[in-house]
């Protein structure tokens, strides 16, 4: 896998003969029949050559807008392409996330890369294969049905052969996809559904050049930022004259409250940034919410109320009881292990080239162009892998900052890496939330009306082609305003993701109380609102089951009609040994379920915990998870994602909460924001229910919600105390147990 494709080389090897060709003559489809709907991102980028090029040297170049985040997506795309194009995976070279070269596939997020990108790669590969087969048929004088293909070589029954590389001489793939090429049936797939080893792991395990941090273009300079001490702080003064003369300092760039320094060496940039920080004076805002008051703050704000579900019980049954509960989630960090990094170069051609690990290269590039007041066609973003991001972290901001710095020193590549402090304090967090649940019950404890109200700030402030979403743009002398956030994507999508319970209650009402301002900077964090919404729904139903003296699995099944949902829930219970489990003092079991977004992967998580009542320490002893992610491209890759989600969610739920006040974020390193460590990670078993004929369902975020809820339910089971505010730190649990 090459890291960055050189454009000149690329154009040279793709050929340019002007042959107009279309295998599927649309006139034959018939006037009354609508053209087939193209799958996923093929709809917006239908030209086959946007996705695939038959290249010199027996290679096939796959061009994708979706990017590798450590989730293994480029390996999955390789599997899909290899199968549908009938070539060995080693022939495939991938260019991913280069805005000058690849189809615009929007953002790599929301567990949608297979659902939108995967289906496009698969269909484009099948279409290309059909075209190649037809070219061979003409060349060899044999009907296509009689030809066989092996690794790009097409053979006729008489032994005559033609390879893809002989057949494509020009623009044969510069045609729109027809949507008519058939994808292979399950039995003919060689790579899809198999555990093909990830393409990127060998380099990562041996120090190969694969991360953005490993790029070292000739003449590269190093930069560091001097970020404000707190949100909305204004730079009053900076004594930079002496610092300009420090060893290795090339340039100090100041624009309003934006301050960065460029130096010859990395340690020189760090020293100069520290000296600048010492010499800077800032005006801090007088008042503002803090992490300690944020839940009250959320409830006190003016809200935009969205009634996302309103279907009351019409049975006329008279409630015997009403139960209410309130659930709280703090701000969480993405907390990448490798601080955000970008490289920027303003070329002699006036093009600003940015190497970035952004999830949204096109939209971020457009936002940066607006910030720099440049033509969007003159800003090129090239994706290069960074450390895991789990959503919208500092990646886009550091790309915007490096562009501001590189603009000040044309012709020199500038590399900016954030410090640990920068990343912890300035990335946008997952929003704090308050959720209130209420149920009316009949005299047997069964649910009549279920009501959920949620309060949240935005979960979506990605660049979205707007400079005002970029951190440095707020700090400029002529600042860009943060656009008023919207709860985008319709009901059950963002703050209210999974807010609507999948259970068939007689009545259900869900209201989103959306807050258009911020207590702390927030944006998309793995699962968005789903983590807290599932935490509260699955905690509340567990509470109602306990009141009804019903088994939590059986009680859920009363309301769960979807067969695939029932299957994962019962499977997780069976894996755990739910029916055989016997209670011991200090130990507890919990289970929870959700279908991510109510349209994606089904996941149920069961776990056992031990709670030390003296210290309040919760220890997770084991976790079992059953999931249904539709058709599986890589079962091991799916398990890896689900397991990673479980561990991250355990970390959030047990340990994590961003602390901040008006003077700034106080969670500024791994000591002040601890995460789960090796000795705290429990054994985890995962089983997948494969559905080879069902659509792909993304699995990257499916276990966040069920894990947190199962943990809470297990702690309740162990202690008989219901904890409704995360995280379950020893101090909080101890206080709760002695209350």
């Amino acid at each position: 896998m090459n890291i960055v494709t050189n454009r000149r080389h690329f154009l040279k090897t793709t050929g340019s003969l002007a042959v107009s060709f279309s295998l599927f003559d649309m006139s034959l489809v018939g006037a009354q029949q609508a053209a087939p709907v193209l799958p996923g991102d093929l709809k917006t980028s239908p030209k086959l050559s946007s996705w695939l090029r038959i290249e010199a040297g027996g290679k096939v170049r796959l061009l994708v807008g979706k990017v590798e985040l450590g989730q293994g997506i480029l390996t999955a795309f390789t599997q899909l392409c290899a199968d549908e194009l009938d070539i060995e995976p080693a022939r495939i070279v991938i260019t991913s996330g280069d805005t000058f070269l690849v189809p615009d596939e929007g953002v790599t997020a929301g567990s949608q890369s297979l659902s939108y990108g995967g289906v496009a790669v698969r269909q484009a590969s099948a279409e290309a294969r059909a075209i190649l087969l037809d070219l061979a048929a003409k060349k060899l004088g044999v009907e296509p049905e009689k030809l066989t293909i092996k690794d790009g070589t097409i053979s006729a029954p008489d032994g005559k052969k033609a390879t893809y590389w002989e057949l494509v001489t020009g623009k044969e793939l510069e045609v729109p996809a027809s949507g008519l090429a058939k994808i292979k049936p399950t039995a003919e797939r060689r790579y899809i559904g198999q555990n093909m080893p990830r393409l990127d792991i060998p380099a990562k395990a041996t120090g190969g050049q694969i991360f953005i941090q490993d790029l070292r273009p000739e003449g590269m300079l190093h930069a560091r930022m001097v970020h404000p001490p707190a949100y909305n702080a204004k730079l009053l003064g900076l004594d930079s004259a002496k610092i300009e003369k420090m060893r290795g300092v090339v340039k100090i760039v100041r624009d309003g409250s934006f301050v960065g320094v460029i130096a010859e060496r990395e340690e020189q940039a760090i020293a100069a940034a520290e000296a600048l920080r010492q010499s800077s004076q800032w005006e801090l805002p007088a008042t503002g919410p803090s992490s300690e008051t944020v839940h009250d703050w959320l409830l006190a704000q003016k809200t935009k109320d969205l009634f996302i579900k309103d279907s009351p019980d019409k049975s006329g049954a008279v409630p015997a009881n009403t139960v209410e509960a309130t659930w709280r989630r703090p701000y969480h960090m993405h907390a990448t292990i490798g601080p955000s990094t970008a490289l920027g170069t303003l070329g002699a051609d006036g093009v600003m080239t940015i190497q970035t690990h952004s999830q949204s290269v096109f939209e971020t590039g457009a936002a940066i162009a607006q910030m720099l007041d440049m033509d969007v066609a003159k800003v090129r973003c090239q994706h290069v892998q960074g450390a895991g991001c789990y959503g919208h972290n500092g990646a886009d901001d550091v790309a915007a900052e490096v562009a501001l710095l590189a603009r000040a020193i044309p012709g020199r590549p500038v590399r900016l890496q954030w410090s640990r402090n920068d990343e912890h304090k300035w990335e946008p967090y997952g929003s704090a939330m308050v959720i209130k649940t209420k149920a009316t019950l009949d005299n047997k404890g069964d649910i009549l009306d279920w009501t959920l109200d949620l309060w949240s700030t935005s979960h979506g402030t990605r660049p979205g082609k707007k400079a005002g979403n970029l951190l440095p743009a707020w700090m400029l002398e002529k600042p860009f305003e943060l656009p008023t956030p919207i709860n985008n994507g319709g009901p059950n999508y963002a703050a209210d993701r999974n807010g609507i319970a999948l259970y068939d209650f007689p009545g259900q009402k869900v209201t989103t109380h959306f807050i258009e301002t911020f207590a702390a900077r927030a944006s998309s964090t793995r699962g968005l609102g789903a983590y807290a919404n599932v935490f509260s729904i699955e905690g509340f139903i567990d509470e109602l089951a306990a009141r009804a003296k019903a088994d939590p699995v059986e009680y859920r099944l009363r309301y769960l009609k979807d067969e695939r949902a029932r299957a994962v829930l019962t499977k997780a219970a069976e894996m755990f040994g739910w029916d055989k489990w016997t209670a011991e003092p200090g130990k507890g079991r919990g289970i929870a379920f959700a279908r991510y977004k109510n349209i994606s992967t089904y996941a149920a998580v069961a776990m056992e915990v031990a709670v030390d009542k003296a210290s309040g320490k919760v220890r997770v002893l084991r976790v079992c998870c059953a999931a249904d992610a539709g058709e599986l491209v890589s079962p091991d890759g799916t398990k890896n994602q689900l397991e990673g989600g479980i561990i991250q969610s355990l970390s959030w739920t047990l340990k994590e909460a961003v602390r901040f006040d008006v003077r700034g974020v106080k969670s500024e390193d791994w000591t002040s924001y601890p995460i789960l460590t090796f000795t705290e990670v429990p054994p985890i078993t995962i089983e997948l229910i494969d559905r080879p004929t069902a659509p792909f369902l993304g699995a990257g975020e499916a276990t966040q919600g069920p894990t947190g809820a199962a943990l809470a339910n297990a702690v309740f089971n162990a202690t008989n105390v219901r904890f409704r505010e995360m995280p379950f730190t020893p101090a909080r649990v101890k206080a709760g147990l002695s209350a």
Partner: protein
Amino acid sequence: MPILKVNGQSHNVAVADDAPLLFVLRNDLKLNGPKFGCGLSQCGACTVLVDGQPVRSCVTSADSVAGQEITTLEGLGTTDKPSKLQQAFIDEQAAQCGYCLNGVIMRAKALLDTTPKPTEGEVRAALDGHLCRCGAHNRIVRAVLRASRD
């Protein structure tokens, strides 16, 4: 001007004495293995071996280890010819983003050098100071145990 012995080769490095070893390895010797994670000795991503001992290169000056044997991830094996330990990580698919792998593998190397047949608990304890955010922990532990078995 420290003379650094890295992966068996001596390098005369023209940097200030207090330059962090990590930046000398990454920026002057162009090694990709050791990673910048925190600069605070908290996450372990920058770990290298100095005379066989795991050391956090982000808080170690290049000068302080002059003349000692420094081993980085590249010193264990190459992408084409990985070491047994590195191969075990590939076989177990023990990564998601893989940014923490350098530190994890170097710490595991130090463990296996002194404790060739560690228990699972010993592996976890050895790696406890290495942070992984993707949740690849159990795969990583399996990879280390696999390397100790094979």
